[in-house]
């Protein structure tokens, strides 16, 4: 090795030591859980409420005495919407903070990059990423994904669209890992239902106008449009569609058409926009709890991270130890169909402490997972924007 190593170590160590001194001291008592969300970069609009939802659960549980008699410490890192920075942040969470789980990774690229660190170090990873490759990684059960995969959500969305009379659907998709997979599933499902998918225009989401893309897709003369977008680009797309005089049906994903987007656009531009998201039952207490933290229409990611932290804490309580492998083993056991139905962590913790079985269902759905960690059996809510307000159309 070269002589510069001691200097490097000294530099890094020098910066870190004052903070670490406190950290190691506290470690004996607290259970440490990491969040890794985008606070800056292209996903920056999504990270802050995700952490807010998790923070609320931790505060509530700590106020009620913690888990296994220990307080919970939530350590939040910024992945900068960048897998390179995400890996370094995850290393800090895992190697320095010694967290038992990493929650809330958003960009598929970040999730795929940090996943090997998690499974090698036996740390549980909960993600909201949509890329279908994620749960197919050799993760040995260390990944749980609360975002439905392309096939599940496409089947439900297409059934709904067909029900509303959509027959000729065109697609505008940001260049994401699921831009093509969602289109292909829709193509197949629409055909089976007597409709057709007439084209998929994939665009560069960082652009500030999509006039020519809109012209291209409207030339196909669709009766409905499916906008496979995120919030920042959907804002621009909806404006350009309105200007182009398109008044047909528009469908999009719940995380793109969130409250912030609806607030940032004039009501006439969002009028009639339909979005869908995985959902719990109507009147779910967990969902209501997220509403009190985030607002009347919490975005799907906040609901999902609310469930990430809830499942983590319940699994720790169920296993009786706070470790990655313990969460790994117990995360499915807290959804025991024979157990008492539970929607809040504090309530679940009490039952578990009394030695009872529980069946947790959360703010984003029933929280049941396939062996590879994909969500199953969740319902979807379809909302429509009317006069600048989101209204529930259907829950199925």
């Amino acid at each position, binding site marked *: 090795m070269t002589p510069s190593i001691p200097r490097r170590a000294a530099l890094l160590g020098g910066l870190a030591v004052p903070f670490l001194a406190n950290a190691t001291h506290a470690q004996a008592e607290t259970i440490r859980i990491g969040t890794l969300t985008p606070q800056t970069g292209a996903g*920056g609009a999504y990270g802050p409420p995700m952490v807010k939802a998790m923070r609320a659960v931790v505060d509530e549980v700590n106020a009620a005495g913690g888990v296994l008699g220990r307080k919970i410490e939530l350590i939040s890192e910024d992945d900068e919407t960048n897998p390179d920075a995400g890996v370094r942040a995850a290393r800090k969470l895992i190697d320095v903070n010694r967290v038992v789980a990493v929650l809330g990774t958003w960009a598929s690229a970040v999730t795929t990059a940090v996943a090997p660190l998690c499974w090698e170090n036996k740390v549980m990873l909960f993600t909201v990423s949509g890329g279908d490759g994620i749960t197919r990684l050799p993760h040995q059960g260390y990944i749980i994904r609360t975002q439905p995969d392309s096939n599940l959500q496409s089947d439900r969305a297409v059934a709904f669209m067909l029900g509303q009379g959509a027959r000729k659907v065109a697609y505008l998709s940001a260049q994401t890992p699921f831009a093509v997979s969602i289109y292909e599933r829709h193509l197949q499902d629409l055909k089976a239902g007597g409709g057709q998918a007439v084209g998929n225009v994939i*665009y*560069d989401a960082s*652009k500030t*106008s999509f006039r020519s893309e809109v012209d*291209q897709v409207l030339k196909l003369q669709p009766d409905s449009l499916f906008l496979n977008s995120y919030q920042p680009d959907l804002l621009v797309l909806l404006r350009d569609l309105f*200007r182009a005089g398109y008044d047909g049906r528009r469908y999009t994903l719940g995380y793109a058409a969130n409250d912030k987007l609806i607030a940032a656009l*004039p009501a006439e531009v969002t009028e009639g926009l339909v979005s869908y998201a995985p959902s719990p039952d109507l009147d779910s207490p967990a969902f209501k709890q997220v509403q009190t933290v985030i607002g009347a229409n919490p975005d799907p990611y906040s609901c999902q991270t609310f469930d990430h932290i809830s499942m983590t804490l319940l699994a720790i309580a169920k296993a009786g130890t706070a470790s990655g492998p313990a969460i790994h083993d117990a995360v499915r056991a807290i959804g025991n169909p024979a157990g008492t139905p539970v929607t809040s962590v504090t309530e679940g913790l009490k039952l578990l402490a009394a030695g009872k079985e529980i069946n947790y269902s959360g703010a984003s759905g029933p929280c049941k997972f396939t062996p590879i960690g994909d969500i199953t059996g969740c319902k979807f809510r379809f909302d429509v924007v009317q006069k600048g307000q989101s209204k529930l159309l259907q829950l199925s």
Partner: protein
Amino acid sequence: MLIELLQVVLNGLLSGAQLAVPAIGFTTIYAVLRFPNFAVASHMTVGAYAGVLVNTQLGWPAGLALVAAFLVAGTVGVASDTLVLRRLRPSGPLTAAIGAAALGIVLENIVRFCFANDPRGFDLPVLRDWRVSLGALGQLRIGPQQTEAAAASLIAMAILFAFLAFTRSGRMMRAVADNPTLAALKGIDAQMVARRANFVGMGLAGFGGMLIGLDTSVDPLTGYRVVLPVFAAAVVGGLGSIPGAVAGAFVVGIGEEFSTIVLDPSYRTAVGFAAILLVLTLRPRGLLGERAL
């Protein structure tokens, strides 16, 4: 087919008009201070925030909000130059350019610290496009607001040209751009000219940033998203040349829109750069050459 080409050219002209204003700001600073000020992106964001805040909080109309965007971004430009970049300039243009990149990171994050990442929209209606019939050819689509924005760009450019041609400050700026040594010999106060160039340049960046914010939304990355095409426009036209920046903005704007019919729309940025490369291969100092301020 012809009508589609016309539509694409029209779309490109409207995007180009949007790019032109910040590109002029960037090139003005280059002409006077001789370094690429990469902080232009964050000043665009600052201007966009100034505009959206006076529009939504104080109820100012778009025209006045544009003036606010110009003034606030210009003031921030002068402040950041005085505090940071002025000290770096003697160490060479590249040190100043790198310092400006770091300054851009700082400004973006000051904005983020104050206003978080949520998008903000202007309190303005979105209007339907006009449809202009061209007889047998078909219909052209023209956005009233984009046309207004393009008109605002043209007005800003006209004011700038008048400022440079007819005012003492403007002439001093041109003198420094032409030959700083000679200007110093004539007793022109270089510091003062630098401040004015920064005020005008970053003010225009803020003005352009708000125009882009009107069309999209305002968040800490508003300026960053368009900064590459803005650089491209300035480079295609010839760094330091204001008419060049305008020409470059139209080349990049039209080039990008054209690419959507030739290639996948997802390659728009790449086509912008292919255009630059082509222009620069033929004319290594840009369409109109350097320092024609």
